[in-house]
């Protein structure tokens, strides 16, 4: 027995949906439409918090994500890295320490550092910024790192003894960082556990680090919002759309800005299929009742 129109509306072949998604993503990427990118207040708060780091401030920068989420976290990380180095060029007293509690995140950080002409070969490496690489053991690792940086990260990303880096020489604990630098901003680009809740438990409460900004995958954003409400974090860069907003704010359009048209188109498609499915459902329900 052939299906009625209403039944077909509720049972669209998934391959048709995927094909339409593929076309609707590809089309704006090849032919950009330039749809507007309104800036959310939670993204603007993050931008303002980074810009507000004064000369002589410290930025702790953690990349806590893997390759799987690079589509969202990659543009966020890239946006932040461009901004913090631009900021350091304007305020030379700012110091930056890169690290990560996800091993793949540290590799992505290192790749982006190379793209910015920074890293191992840069004469300023170790003086104005350092890349400590991966710190294992998730939440326990956070607690141990905070208590003894030189034992937990004995070597930096490039195999240097961190005691030989001028920036790290006197910074033995997280308390040393908080005591030495009057303004400490913590940036985390993350996609899961370990992530913000662990940082709040191991760093914010014991060491009173109040200036925290988060960039996360869109899936994680609803879980972050209660922390914005309580003031435990300043703001959130929400997925790819947040990254696009951030690119607008730092005036460096990139991968995320190019993807927002495609994102909007696919959302229209999802909404359309939700509506079609519901029409089919209620029509069928009405028929059964009658």
């Amino acid at each position, binding site marked *: 027995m052939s299906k009625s129109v209403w039944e077909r509306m509720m049972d669209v072949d*998934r*391959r048709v949906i*995927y094909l339409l*998604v*593929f076309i609707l*993503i*590809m089309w704006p*990427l*090849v032919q950009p439409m330039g749809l507007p990118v309104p800036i959310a*207040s939670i993204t603007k708060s993050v931008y303002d918090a980074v810009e507000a780091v004064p000369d002589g401030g410290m930025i702790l920068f953690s990349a806590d994500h893997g390759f*799987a*989420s*690079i*589509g*969202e976290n*990659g543009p966020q990380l890239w946006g932040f890295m461009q901004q913090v180095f631009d900021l350091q060029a304007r305020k030379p007293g700012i110091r930056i320490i890169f690290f990560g509690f996800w*091993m*793949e995140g540290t590799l992505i950080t290192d790749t982006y550092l190379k793209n910015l002409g920074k890293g191992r070969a840069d004469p300023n490496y170790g003086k104005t910024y350092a890349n400590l690489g*991966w710190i*294992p053991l998730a*939440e*326990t690792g956070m*607690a141990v790192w905070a208590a003894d940086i030189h034992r*937990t*990260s*004995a*070597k930096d990303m490039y*195999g240097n003894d961190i005691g030989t880096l001028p920036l790290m020489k006197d910074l033995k604990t997280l308390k040393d960082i908080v005591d030495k630098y009057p303004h400490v901003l913590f940036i985390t680009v993350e996609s899961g556990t370990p992530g913000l*809740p*662990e940082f*709040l*438990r*191991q760093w*914010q*409460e*014991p060491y009173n680090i109040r200036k925290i900004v988060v960039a996360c*995958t*869109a*899936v994680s*954003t*609803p879980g972050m*919002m*209660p922390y*914005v*409400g*309580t*003031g*435990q974090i300043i703001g959130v860069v*929400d*997925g*790819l*759309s947040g990254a696009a907003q951030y690119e607008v704010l730092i005036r460096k359009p990139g*991968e995320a800005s*190019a*993807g927002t048209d*495609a*994102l909007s188109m*696919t*959302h229209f498609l*999802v909404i359309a299929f939700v509506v079609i499915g519901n029409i089919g459902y209620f029509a069928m329900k009405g028929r059964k009742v009658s």
Partner: protein
Amino acid sequence: MPEIEVIFASWVAALLTLAVFSFIYKENPWFRFVEHLYIGGTIGYNMAFNIDWLVKNAFIPVFVKGQYYEYVLAFILGLLWYCRFSKRFFWLWRFPLSIMVGTGIGLAMRTVVMAQFIEQIRGTMLPLVGVPIWDPKRVAGSSLINNILIILMVIGTVSYFYFTVERKGAFKIGAEIGKWTIMLGLGAGFGNTVMARMSLAISRIGFLVKPEQQIAFLILAIVILGTIGYTSWTEKKKAA
């Protein structure tokens, strides 16, 4: 002119991306190959990273700097993990496990009450006077409408999960508000999940349609689709 390694790497990346996407049509050997490659690559990469960290942070202090005593306990506990593979010494595996679990819980518990309980309760104690009715510049910020919504929705959600009293009168209204709040939360979660998944697809499709990638994309797409189509056709023929 890009280097030969770059061209080769981009063709491999395009092939792997398309092979993963081929699963959308149906299960096939291209996808299976990439799935295994991904798992193997990830495990190998993780192992190499861990070994590198161990060499830098444990082997060098012990074997080069001679700090034997500081690492004796860690070394013994580390070895005990391998008792997991012995029926006779299996019980010894519980020692490092207990220490790991105990340390983890202990570290989390010391601040969880403050960081995730008291702060969240404090976050719902919001002013209803002295705040603007609505702040269009900071829609997520403190305003009368937001504060009323947060207070009502938190109380409603908590009452929804209170099961020892029959849902009647005010309690029923509270639970109903809770139910709608949860549904709104799940709706926001679903919307964000869609956005996250689409973002990942956009990232890979964006890679495929880059001008320098388009030839690889077209040729490899034809190859993969052609082989999948051919195998499907032969399977159908055999079945017939």
